[in-house]
């Protein structure tokens, strides 16, 4: 089985690589369109800003290859946000693989932003076409200031004032707003589910 992580020269590539390595997978790091097209499973990581990440994808000539992909693609945190049409973050046009926009979260008393820490998963649907290896009540680790629109691709939610998509599963597309590589045993279950997709 081949798995690769897109290395855009920003963010937490190594953290994600080590997360898969602990499960016995050996992801390679890639940043060329041919690999994006060929590799069986691809991970789009992300810590950082949407504008910079999209600019990197554009300059590496990867946008068409990502759009054309039909095999499993997992976006993590900002990587999941990049799958949407657009983002409030510097008003960036994204990959438009999933309908909807990524919106800036607003801090209110009792609910600081970033949403940082371990929050319980809701609305998971194990043993369905939205199975992501998680069950309701699993605590996973979040660290984000922008949130995706809820929609048909949502595979689990988390409540932070309002319900937000915590994970996506739609056709070949997978997404995690949380950090599965840093979410202890539930995170490992999520990554395993992606590896066996």
């Amino acid at each position, binding site marked *: 089985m081949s798995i690769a992580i897109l290395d855009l020269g920003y963010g937490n590539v190594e*953290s994600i690589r080590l997360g898969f390595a602990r499960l016995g997978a050996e992801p390679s790091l890639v940043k060329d369109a041919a690999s994006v097209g060929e590799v069986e499973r691809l991970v789009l990581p992300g810590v950082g800003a949407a504008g910079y990440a999209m600019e990197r994808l554009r300059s590496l000539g990867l946008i068409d290859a990502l759009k054309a992909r039909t095999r499993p693609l997992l976006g993590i945190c900002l990587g999941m946000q990049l799958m949407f049409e657009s983002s409030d973050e510097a008003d960036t046009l994204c990959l438009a693989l999933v309908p909807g926009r990524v919106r800036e979260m607003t801090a209110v008393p009792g609910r600081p932003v970033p949403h940082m*820490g371990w929050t319980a998963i809701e609305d998971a649907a194990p043993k369905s076409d939205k199975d992501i290896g998680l069950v309701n009540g699993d605590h996973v680790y979040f660290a984000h200031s922008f949130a995706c629109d809820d929609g048909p691709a949502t595979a689990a939610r988390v409540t932070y004032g309002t319900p937000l998509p915590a994970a996506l599963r739609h056709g070949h597309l997978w997404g995690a707003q949380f950090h599965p590589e*840093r979410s202890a*045993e539930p995170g490992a279950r999520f990554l395993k589910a992606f590896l066996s997709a």
Partner: protein
Amino acid sequence: MPVARIIPCLDVADGRVVKGVKFRDHRDVGDIVDLALRYRDEGADELVFYDITASAEGRGVDVAWVHRIAAVIDIPFCVAGGIRSRDEAARVLEQGADKISVNSPALERPELIGELAQAFGRQCVVVGIDSLIAGDGRWIVKQYTGKVEATRDAGRDTVAWAREAVALGAGEIVLNCIDRDGVRRGYDLVQTAALVPLGVPVIASGGAGSVQHFADAFGIGASGALAASVFHDRRIAIPDLKRDLAALGVETRP
């Protein structure tokens, strides 16, 4: 809502974990990776590693141990100490750290906070503040606290500096109240509560000695509570702490 976070803090010097009292007289506590694994297994929600001598010695963080930790633990961890530039931060994150924390270098050059937030996102940027109650009762910021002889006043008031840091792009504030450090009389709830309205997660630090101290910190709105000596000395075991917090109505990660 995220549950309350329990965060063991590991002070690192010369590749070992150490602990002092009121930032002085450091003693050896153990191997970095052994302790990281121990706390992970006991249910810590996050770990913070402070290279406590980096800033005072004017050098960058030693990244060799960062990768060793990133490889073995599956909970988030933050690295602090001597990160003075975007490139230095990138070097730490590329080794697998999840967040970086800046303290003295941000006081030297506050624009650093914005540069880090822009490059890595503010969720990645923690600002640590070492606060002291001055003779006149004001809360003031101290700098270069890793070494007694290097420590000095930063010339700033604690709340004003925290507000400025958030405006510049800090995604989390760790407030370390020096008067409480290592003495187990409880967090400084008044100072900590003063930062909660800034709108970013606030982590209480300095003074944890009992379960009630943790509960008190969460009660005034802290998102996390950081502690070192009570965990290192096994005065409080994290599983017991979480069980007792539940009895006090504080929800934590199972």
